[in-house]
């Protein structure tokens, strides 16, 4: 049984080579957390591919957690700090110190502002065909399957990793777009969890009024909703630190991450 498990990735690789013989392998970027890397094919996030990151609830409009999660990965993607990150968005509300806190040096960013989704997608595709680019990020509302396919192919060809942050105008657009299939290799959903209260309440946290303590270390629920060649899964992590690494939340670090069945996620949407 164990041996069968071990040869599965090799088999997958052989099938891929038969399916797309010209495709170069661009390697993977491990998260550095065993529980997460074990689930991902190849032991990490595929480089030279398109990854989609979603938010939850009100964050589907603000895209704060998706941006933070992406920033953590981008910071590690080019560990030496070389290469420009092209970030295409319609509303330039990224904040440099916040990005730096998650491991992405804001000096490496080039922001591209475009009012329409179609222009953002075009700019991403141009970025994926260019040289000197480490990664491309796009904050997109409406996305067609064809557009995502184009991005995925462009990423495969150039080896540049692309991230789609889904950011919807309102709840209605979120409802329509949330479950549409696309060609991204993985689909992540990041939700905020109530933070763990710090062991010692800070004096300035309004403690005397009896309605709460200070904000602790932020925690996220990271869900891998879809993964080509892998299983959906879910983890609770502490947010990415200045080196861009996430870590499993302390309470869960001792037990293995429970893989959740794919059906369950499809229903939950």
């Amino acid at each position: 049984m164990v041996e069968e498990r071990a040869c599965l990735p090799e088999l997958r690789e052989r099938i891929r080579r038969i399916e797309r013989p010209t495709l170069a392998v661009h390697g993977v970027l491990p998260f550095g957390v065993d529980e997460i890397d074990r689930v991902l094919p190849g032991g990490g996030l595929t480089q030279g591919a398109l990854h989609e990151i979603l938010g939850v609830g009100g964050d589907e409009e603000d895209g704060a957690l998706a941006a933070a999660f992406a920033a953590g990965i981008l910071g590690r993607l080019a560990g030496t700090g070389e290469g420009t990150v092209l970030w295409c968005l319609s509303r330039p509300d990224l904040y440099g110190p916040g990005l730096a806190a998650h491991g992405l040096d804001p000096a490496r960013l080039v922001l591209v502002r475009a009012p329409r989704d179609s222009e953002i997608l075009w700019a991403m595709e141009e970025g994926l065909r260019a040289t000197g680019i480490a990664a491309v990020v796009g904050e997109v509302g409406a996305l067609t399957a064809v557009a995502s396919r184009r991005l995925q192919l462009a990423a495969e060809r150039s080896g540049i990793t692309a991230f789609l942050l889904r950011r919807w105008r309102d709840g209605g657009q979120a409802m329509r777009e949330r479950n549409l299939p696309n060609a991204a290799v993985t689909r992540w959903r990041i939700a905020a969890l109530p933070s763990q209260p710090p062991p010692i309440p800070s004096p300035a946290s309004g403690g005397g009024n009896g309605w709460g303590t200070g904000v602790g270390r932020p925690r996220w629920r990271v869900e891998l909703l879809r993964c080509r060649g892998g299983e959906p899964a879910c983890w609770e992590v502490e947010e990415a630190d200045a080196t861009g690494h996430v870590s499993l939340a302390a309470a869960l670090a001792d037990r293995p991450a429970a893989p959740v069945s794919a059906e369950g996620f499809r229903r939950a949407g």
Partner: protein
Amino acid sequence: MPLADALSFHPALATAAAEPTEDAAALRRLAEWCRRYSPWTAPDGTDGVRVEITGSAHLWGGETALAADLAARLDRRHLASRIAIADTVGAAWAMARFAEGKSLVILPSGDCRAALSPLPVEALRLDPATAQGLRRVGLKRVGDLAAMPRDALTRRFGEMVARRLDQAQGDLPEPLSPLGEAPTRRVRLSFAEPIADPADLMRATERLVEDLVPRLAREGIGARRLDLAFHRIDGRVEQIRLGTARPSRDPRHLAALFKERLDTVDPGLGIEDVILAVFAVEPLSAEQIGFPGHPTSCETSGIAPLLDRLGNRLGLAALSRLEPRASHIPERASVLVPVGSAHSRTPVAQAPDKPPRPIRLFEPQEAVEAFWLLPDDPPFRFTWRRRRHRVTRADGPERIADEWWRPEGCGTVDAIRDYYRVEDEEGRRFWLFRSGFHGGNQPPRWFVHGVFS
């Protein structure tokens, strides 16, 4: 004379409504078209076009050939014209309008004085009242004026008469402003047969860029702003204007930039001239251009073509970088700067123990409806974007006062802000601030300034 009177004299009179705006626009188009002869053209009054042909006449085989070509082309478009070439603007103006019986006058260099003297005084570009006054005292010809003592002329008719005379004769300089900006470098391609096929336009563009690039390379410069003008046979001019993020003289790159926009050019019945003009140049050292087929090692030159492609579709203003600034006002601590601007690599000292900063900062801040208990408390509930949030945890306040040494920051409403980092029941974390004090002139107001991850 009123129109009714005129019609009573001559019932078959053909009439047309005067359209000064349309006429001015047509004259401007004509001036643009004249750029095929020289980069320096401008409409002159309501009925003329000035073309500065110093240094460009030899391209047409001399002034005579140039004037003949111009006359023939205007004639083909059924435009009656009078053309004069002279040393000064004033002399050319006078000869074009007042030369007896000739529609094409070319004054040899240095002949201004002699040629002007038999002309009526109106030829000096004087206003009608002055010209009338000169005639009344018997000064009918330019030659009569030249003999007059200057101080008497000036006393009687103002300084304009003497100045116009001197300008026409070349004794005084006459500053001129061309239509639009005069380019610094220019290459031109003319066709015996008009072209209209997109593939031909593309080849013409490539040819022009190839002509231009060696000139730029010789001078060690790169183009920042370019203009490609297609002169149609019906006299219209179609233009593509381009800007580049960095100075460039890579022929493939420049041609690719133009090609992307070629489909916006309507060739009409055909294009007879294509002119590529460079308006802004910057020094560009030789080593920045890579060998064909080899990726360049320099990271900055690697993304310049991409930035140009993006910038020419979305506007260069759409591309920016985040730059840290030494300021403790949140929105001033990280600013968007244009991508073309030089990097200011001054390290910005950050306080190491600064409280966390949000990942997205809203500019301007968004007002919220908030409820709180004690003056220094964060709100226990607030409504933002029609969503209600109940606060479960909060940190703060972090007081950020305005930078009083800046003139624009003094005395604004948010002179002092108290920032709170709050978490709602779902776990979403916001950066709220309160502006104003309890007991102040206005009740305190609450804003969301950013969201944390």
